[in-house]
């Protein structure tokens, strides 16, 4: 167990009082930017970068570790409390989390999220410590055809989120696809739906869409109803963050399932942590249905928070592995971390462990320390954050509006982004008004371009030969799993229908 020895050495480097202070600062900062809608950990690392130039590498890494995971701990907080997730990775945990908050379980939901993030991050970082070289092999098994298969798989696997009303789901999906089409088309350089505005050439940022749809949309929705039914909007902030044994027994499997979804996704650059969080959410929803769980979708299920949160952080954990071992940034935060590492003469890539081994192990140890600190911090914060709900509505939502606009403006200092934000916010408001589900929009925005680009890349490479799509073990496996799932769920659906009909029939005869 050479890795353990090396890791222990890393810990001995990282564990000094001064370094603990840095990780605390990093964790606080990361959590703060995570909570704010629009601001992400990429931004936090970018702002910190100049400061860390004057620190020694260990101190800098440990601070980055705090920021890196802190953003993911924080982003679900505002989602759970206010239905306005701080980042796209927290969208999936918002659905059930906010339901829990509305029913007076805000603190418990926050604690579940924090522990989920901790477990996901912990397991993922452990995987990185022991299996980094193997992870790299997995990453290189993915070409365009495999990505396309994955996207199709994810689309269908997530469709359970959509299936409450098929027509409404498809309308939302359509809105998402339209938003995703804006911008210069990568493979051909053609400009699509930009209205001649060069600011739209890079497309509409996922951050703008998330913040507009979820945060601003929610604000407008609340504002429109504030005098009509003030009681319905009141959220009881009561509840303790402690999870009972019963809760733990419910959440544990969900945390582990979520982690299992997140782990592989960190290594492959397929749209960041949104896909696995949605997959985890979809799975929990399906399981809840089978189990006859009435909490899910009604008063908020602890499982529905636990799984996506664990998935999100597990993705971040293995993404760090891909970053270190392959030099492959799978997210914006990872990209800026590469820049940071290079400042210290660390070139992430296949030679990293040989060239700067001691620094890498210090970094990995820092990630563990960061996670522990964040868990402690967020468990304490859960009560405090929940108190945020005591702030009168009008102040609170005015504050959210200001912060949303600020966060979006900070991305690229573009006023056009603000107009887009407002437009998307209005769309979000109208969708709430007509009870269109919001999740499919975001799924389409994330998976649509992925599926399109990868399909076209695969077909360009093969010069239009469709058989390339099913020519590798990975693609064949994915499509087989997909076919089995479809058949099984189809059969279940039929059986369900038959039972229902029989039930109705027996009811009739009994009357």
């Amino acid at each position: 167990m050479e890795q353990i020895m090396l890791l222990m050495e890393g810990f001995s480097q990282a564990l000094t009082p001064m370094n603990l202070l840095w990780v605390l600062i990093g964790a606080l900062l990361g959590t703060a930017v995570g909570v704010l809608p629009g601001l992400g950990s990429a931004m936090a690392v970018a702002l910190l970068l100049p400061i860390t130039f004057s620190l020694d590498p260990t101190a800098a890494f440990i601070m980055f570790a705090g920021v890196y995971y802190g953003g993911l701990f924080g982003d679900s907080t505002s989602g759970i409390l206010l239905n306005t997730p701080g980042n796209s990775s927290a969208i999936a945990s918002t659905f059930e989390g906010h339901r829990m908050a509305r029913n007076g379980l805000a603190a418990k939901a926050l604690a579940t999220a924090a522990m989920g993030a901790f477990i996901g991050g912990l397991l993922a970082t452990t995987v990185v410590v022991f299996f980094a070289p193997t992870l790299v092999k997995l990453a290189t098994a993915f070409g365009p055809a495999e990505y396309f298969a994955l996207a199709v798989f994810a689309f269908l696997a997530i469709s359970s989120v959509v299936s409450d009303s098929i027509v409404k789901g498809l309308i939302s999906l359509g809105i998402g696809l339209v938003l995703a089409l804006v911008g210069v088309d990568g493979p051909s350089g053609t400009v699509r739906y930009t209205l001649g505005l060069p600011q739209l050439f890079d497309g509409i940022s996922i951050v703008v869409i998330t913040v507009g749809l979820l945060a601003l949309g929610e604000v407008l929705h609340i504002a429109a109803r504030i005098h009509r039914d003030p009681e319905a909007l009141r959220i009881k902030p009561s509840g303790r963050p402690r999870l009972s044994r019963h809760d733990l027994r419910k959440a544990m499997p969900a945390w582990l399932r979520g982690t299992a979804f997140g782990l592989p996704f960190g290594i492959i650059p397929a749209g960041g942590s949104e896909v696995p969080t949605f997959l985890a959410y979809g799975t929990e929803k399906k399981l809840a249905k089978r189990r006859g769980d009435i909490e899910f979708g009604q008063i908020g299920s602890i499982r529905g928070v636990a799984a996506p949160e664990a998935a999100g952080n597990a993705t971040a954990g293995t993404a760090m592995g891909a970053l270190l071992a392959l030099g492959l940034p799978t997210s914006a935060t990872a990209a800026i971390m590469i820049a940071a590492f290079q400042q210290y003469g660390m070139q992430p890539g296949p030679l990293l462990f040989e060239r700067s081994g001691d620094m890498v192990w210090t970094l990995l140890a820092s990630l563990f320390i960061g996670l522990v600190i964040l868990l402690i911090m967020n468990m304490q914060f859960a009560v405090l954050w929940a108190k945020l709900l005591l702030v009168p509505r009008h102040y609170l939502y005015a504050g959210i509006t200001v912060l949303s606009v600020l966060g979006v403006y900070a991305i690229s200092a573009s006023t056009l982004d603000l107009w887009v934000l407002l437009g998307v916010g209005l769309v979000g408001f109208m969708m709430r008004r007509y009870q269109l589900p919001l999740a499919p929009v975001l799924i389409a925005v994330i998976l649509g371009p992925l599926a399109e680009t990868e399909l076209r890349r695969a077909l360009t490479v093969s010069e239009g030969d469709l058989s390339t799509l099913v020519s590798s073990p990975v693609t064949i496996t994915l499509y087989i799993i997909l076919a089995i799932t479809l058949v099984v769920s189809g059969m279940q659906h039929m059986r369900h229908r038959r039972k229902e009909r029989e039930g109705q029939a027996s009811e009739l005869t009994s009357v």
Partner: protein
Amino acid sequence: MVDKRIMGKVVYGVAVVAIAGLAFTNAAASGGESSARNKLVLMAPAAPGGGWDGFAREAQQAMKSIGTVNNIQVTNIPGAGGTIGLSQFVQMTGRHDMMMVTGGVMIGAVELANSDTTLDDVELVARLADDYAALVVPAKSDIQDLDDFIEVWREDPGGTSIAGGSLGSIDHLLTGYVAQKVGIDPADTNYIAYSGGGEALTSMLSGTTVGGISGYNEVADQVEVGTLRALAISSEERLPGVDVPTFKELGVDAVMANWRGFVGAPGITEEQKQEFVEIVTEFRDSQQWRDALERNNWTDSFMVGDQFADFVDNEITVTAQIIEGLGL
């Protein structure tokens, strides 16, 4: 009234965060009318973490280290290969406290988008650092050297897919340039665009495409451990410490640098421009900048004045011609 006190704390906390956020944004975006020696804003027309952002921040550090400017800020205006940054920069007429990072990629992006704003609209200050692109194939490929590759390529230009960065990038331009030089119609080439060198790397490692063209620094480690084989590099001469032949020495006259430099806003006076040139010249000689060049594997290509202007003119002509050849 415990609740009220806690509420006060929460409100206070939110306010602090909001103000801090505002301050950060403001610091990044503002700029006064003072002298460039007092306060200088370096605009990186790329997102934080992007190539030009790294360049701007290295320059910022170098300037700080020798104190040639008192207060230096880096601001990011990302988008569309730098053309968004460029179009905003040309509106800052007469701003003598602001320089923008530019480079070969911007010329490609301007040509590709048929943008109205070009590098003719700004004041050229200096070219500072270059790196080069390399043609690589997966290690398990049958292709051993450039001659093999060209043979396969000539036989079936469409079937010989090449992965690289986004359209209009140096990777893309070099593909067209090399094709031209070896007698293949660039419009027939099969270039698979990725949003960045990192992503293109996976497609090479997974063996999806026959080859790839990428910044040599991005593939150097993979070449060293032997997962990729570098066939040729686009530099004029062999790079020190890099055991890869140049296209030129292998008989394909395709020299192309991914250069980076600075430009000033339109409408500045000759003295103000000269001030920029002096600042750049000063920090270019600093130890910090030499370290930065080494750390990033950049080649020093310092160039100012007419020499730089001629270079840019030539770049624009060549780029326009390649892009036309590629049929875009």
